[in-house]
Structure formats: structure tokens, C-alpha cells
């Protein structure tokens, strides 16, 4: 969910409605350049940036919103490279479990240690993003770092479904990371696909565009129904935070 979309009060309302079907939220910090996102999620970022909700200030908003499920933050490191410490401090202060920087490994591989150190300093867990074209050594490295979860982006961008054998990629990732918690996402829109990914080794499913599309169309009910159906189709065991 893009932080604050479509407006702050509706945002909290939507989170509340979705809560029965959600293990944890991944909340995206609105940015002018949501570089790994597809058209649907981009729209929500642009909308929020136009409303003036972006950057560190956006993060502070979370202090005012009651979130009844655990949540993690998603942000692009390129935006906060100069304020990494401050950003992680704020994230910890508002109650996030960890901060996912999807561009960390691709654009700033040399900063992994700093990210870990700074996260630990403020009491955040770590979490790491991998793509469907990713070095095996790096997946093993991620596993060795004992993160809260490893996120595998199944498609080249959020919400875009290309003909990629994603189940196979999940199986390979699983082999490489052992029993670490594996979260998969990007363009998952049906209970059937969600279930098949779980069967192939994912521990959790992230649904973004399919839910947000409905919210953009003012169909909150539809968004909640989809969350319900997907949630019902998968049997989430051993969630990283212990809740379902």
C-alpha cells in the first residue's frame, strides 16, 4: 500500500478493512520516481507526491495512523542515501518491523553492511529484495544474514505480468535460502496463483497492484473481497512475526 493513498483518512480505513486478511502490511513511501513499479502503483505515488506527501515527512505520518497489524516500510534507497540513519530511526520510531530497500543490492551493493548496522542500531530487523535474475551467492548471503524475510520480485516490475515461469524461480530461490522466510510478490492477482506459489515454496504472498487497482476505482469492497479470497486460499504457516 502506498502510504496515505488515496488520502490519509481513507488510507487508515482501508487498512482496517483489509486487516482480517492480512499478516502484515508493506507500506511504500511515495516518491517521484517509483522505479521498480508498474503503472498502477506509479499512479498512486504520483498522486501522493502531488498531495505533498513524500520523503521523511511522509514516514512521520505513520505516527498518526493506527495500524493494527505489523508492518514494514518499502522505500527506494536512492531517495534516502544521504539520510539513511535518520530514515531508519524514524521507521523504528513509528513501529515498523524492517525497511525494504529494493534497490539496495542493485544500485548500492557496497552498502549492505551499513544498512544492516544502522538497522540493528535502532532495533529494526533487516529484509532483503531479490529479483528473478539474481546471483545465487547473493541469495545464500541474504539467508546467512538472518533477515526477517527475503522478498523475491517475481516479475520485472510490480503489477506487470510477463510470461515468466515464476513457480520454478520460487523453487530455485527456496533451494538457495534454506528455511528462511520467503515472501514473493509482483503481479499476483488470483487465489490460484497465490496458492501455487505457496505450494512451490513461498511462505507469504504480497498483493499490491491487484488491490490498489480496485482502490483507484473506488472499489474498496472489491479490494477487501480479493484479499479475503486470497487469504482463504493459502494457509499461512509460521509467519515471521508469529501472527496471521
Amino acid at each position, binding site marked *: 500500500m502506498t502510504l496515505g493513498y488515496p488520502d490519509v483518512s481513507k488510507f487508515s480505513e482501508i487498512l482496517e478493512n483489509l486487516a482480517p486478511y492480512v499478516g502484515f502490511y508493506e507500506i511504500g513511501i511515495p516518491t517521484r*520516481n517509483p*522505479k*521498480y513499479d*508498474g*503503472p498502477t502503483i506509479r499512479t498512486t505515488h504520483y498522486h501522493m507526491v502531488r498531495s505533498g506527501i513524500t520523503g521523511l515527512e511522509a514516514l512521520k505520518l505513520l505516527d498518526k495512523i493506527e495500524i493494527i497489524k505489523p508492518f514494514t516500510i518499502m522505500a527506494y534507497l536512492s531517495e534516502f542515501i544521504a539520510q539513511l540513519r535518520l530514515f531508519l530511526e524514524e521507521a523504528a520510531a513509528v513501529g515498523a518491523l524492517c525497511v525494504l530497500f529494493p534497490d539496495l*543490492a*542493485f*544500485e548500492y*551493493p557496497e552498502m549492505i553492511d551499513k544498512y544492516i548496522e544502522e538497522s540493528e542500531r535502532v532495533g529494526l530487523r533487516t529484509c532483503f529484495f*531479490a*529479483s*528473478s*535474475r*539474481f*546471483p*545465487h*551467492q*547473493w541469495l545464500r548471503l541474504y539467508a546467512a544474514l538472518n533477515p526477517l524475510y527475503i522478498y523475491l520480485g517475481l*516479475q*520485472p*516490475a510490480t503489477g*506487470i505480468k*510477463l*510470461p*515468466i*515461469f515464476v513457480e*520454478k*524461480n520460487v523453487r*530455485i*530461490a527456496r533451494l538457495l535460502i534454506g528455511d528462511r522466510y520467503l515472501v514473493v510478490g509482483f503481479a499476483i492477482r488470483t487465489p490460484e496463483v497465490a496458492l501455487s506459489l505457496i505450494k512451490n515454496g513461498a511462505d507469504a504472498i504480497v498483493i499490491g497492484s491487484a488491490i490498489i487497482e480496485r482502490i483507484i476505482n473506488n472499489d474498496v469492497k472489491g479490494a477487501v473481497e480479493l484479499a479475503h479470497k486470497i487469504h482463504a486460499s493459502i494457509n499461512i504457516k509460521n509467519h515471521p512475526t508469529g501472527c496471521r
Partner: protein
Amino acid sequence: MTYLPSYWYNIVADLPVPLPPLLDPPEYESSRIAQLTKILPSRIIDEEYTLNRLIRIPEEVRAVYRKIGRPTPLIRAEGFEKALGVHRVVTIYYKYEGALLAGSHKLNTAVPQVYYAKTDGASEVVTETGAGQWGLAVSMAAAMLGVKAAIFMTRSSYLSKVSRRIAMEALGAKVIPSPSRRTKTGKNALYRNAHHPGTLGLAITEAVEYVLASPYRRYVAGSVLESVITHQTVIGQEVLHQMPEEPDYMVACVGGGSNMAGFTYPAIGMKLRGEGFEKTKFIAAESAAAPRLSRGEYRYDGLDTGLVLPLAKMYTLGREYVPPPIHAAGLRYHGASSSLSLLRKLGYIKAVAYEQEEVLRAAILFARSEGIIPAPESAHAIKAVIDISHKAPKGSVIIFNLSGHGLLDTDAYESICNELVTGEISVFND
């Protein structure tokens, strides 16, 4: 039976750092990435986004590989060593991809891509070409597999590489000079410059636009994409089986990077995994007309000039860059594949750039000592080998990739041969 690889090798799985992803250009509302489903054969997309280190080669493709002349030979260049005066000092081998039916390494990926397009139900494959090596390979694969081919050929080559154009037409392909009036991009380019020589970046945009006009067309990519590069790794895997000893140098020319990558990646992969090739230096030879690895910037840029394709992080001269027309038209590309660029950035690959004349002179020396006329593109590697052989310590072993023959590039050799005949220049004054 002789060794023919069963898998393609995907170096992405072994890279020391993750490969930066393809991105959508931020200035467009519609997604270039989403559009790939209408452009590329679906299995190419799948191979582009795989965690597999090895990708199984379909049996149908392996069968065609045998028919077109795989495996290709690894040849000791004794005559060339003698001509260089390094015989018994330095040992030189070359992997001869010119032995393939279409005369270059390009068939290694033309065959699977055309096969995949056909499996998707496409009736026509579309692409761009410079000197025509890639266009010829696609035309040949299309004829073998029974689909039509349309080739956008950069105008400077369309006018100079007549034999290759005719060969493509003889195989049934439609050859269109680029920029053309068939696409919006082509018309714009011609409007700005009626004598535009064409560039590979622009011809790609035209080919993709043409594909998007019909659901029965698929674009086949001549280089640059990681999937395309994996297809070329049959070259390097065969080399691992054929080489009598581990080389000190592996050398290849670079256009988009596919022949260099295909030739070296199986060895570089072993190096990355700590299984060998510790001492081997990997040298990329490019044209001074398009020296992206030697003088380009490492950043995100368009794969094509008109941004119909996504952005890739690579060494680039800028997607608008128009390289001067040269005989080695296959090297006139503004960028180089993401993985090759990354390996260059990390120091696993060194790059050198050469001017046309010194390259052609090297080619003539090679032709006269080995009896093979090299493609002008491949001749860049030959020039690099000459330079290395004069500096390398005694006992060094050099293997280079002779990516194609130049029997259809006689225009390139015409003036230099005339000058040699009249005694204006000498082959040996390097």
C-alpha cells in the same frame, strides 16, 4: 559423437553483484516492460528472467545447431604466429564462428529465437541489422523454420553491403533500409536528415514499431539481451572442451556484446566460482567509432534510440549517438549488454578501441597468413591479438573469437587492397 552443449549458461546466476534490472523510462505513462509481451517471443522473456544457471537447449534447436555447423572448430593460428614473428614465443588459437552456414556467430541465437517466435504462433520475425550478418542469420533461420522475415538494415550498410542484402532477399526476407518511411521514428529521422546513415539503435526502434503493428510478428534481438547472450555461450562451452591449455588471454570484438560474452562467459563463470581461469585476461576489442566500453558512461540508457524498449544499465555513448559509418557496421551500437558492462565496471574485462584502418590492415595480415578473410567486426579482435602478442611474456597463450568471415565484405577490403597493390601502404608496418 562430437561435443555439442546441452545447456546455455546464464552468468547472471554467478555474478559477484546483482545485475541492475531493466527499467521503464520515467517519462512515459505506458510501460515499456509490459509491452515486451507484444514484442519478444515469450520464451525469450522467460529466459531473460530466470534464476537458472543453466538453461536447457530444446532438442529441436540442438538439431538445427548440428545442421548449421556446430560445433565450430578451434584452430591453431600457426601461420599468423609466423607472420607476426611470435611463433614459438606466443601460441594463438581462434574459435572460428565463420564456419557456421550464415558466416557468423549470429545463427546461434537466430535459431532459438525464430523457433520460439514460431512456437508463439508468429508468422513473421522482424529485426534490425548493420553489416547484415545478423539479418542474414535471421533470414536463414526463418527459411529453415518456415516463417517470413523482415529486416531493417541501416542505410549506410544497405547501400554498401549489397551482397549480404541480396543474400537475405534470396532467402526470402524483406530488407528495408533504415531510417525508412514505414515507421514514425524512421520518418522523423529522415525529416531531420534526408541522408541519415542509420544507426542500430534507430533500426531497432523501427523494427519494434513494425512488430507492434501486427500480432503475428515477433521481434528477434541480435545482441545485448541476457537471454540472447546465453544462447551464444555454446561458443565458450565448446572452447572449454577444445582448448589444449588454459589461455592467458581471451579476446573478442564487441558490438552489443553477444559474441564476446558467449565466448568468454563460461570461462569467466569458472573464474567467478573459483574453478579456474585465475590468470586469464579478458579483452574486449571495439571500434573507435563506437567505443562505449572504453569511453562511454556507465548509467541507465535506452536499449534503442526511440525508447520503445526499456532502459538498461550499461556503458553507453548515449542512445542518440550516431557513429560514423564504418565497414564493421555490426559494432555501431551505442551501448553494451548489462552483464558485460557490469563485468567491465568490476574490472573482469578490459576494453580497447581501434581505428578502421589499423583493423583492416590486421585483417589482411590474418587473411594472408591463415587463408581466412575475417569479418571487419572480428578483425578488431585480430588487431587486439597482434598488440597483445607483441607484449605478452614468452609462453603466453591467446585464444580469440573469429566471430565471422568477411567473404561478403569485399567492399571493406577494396580500398585497402588497392593501396597494397600500388604499394602505398604495407601490411607489416604495425
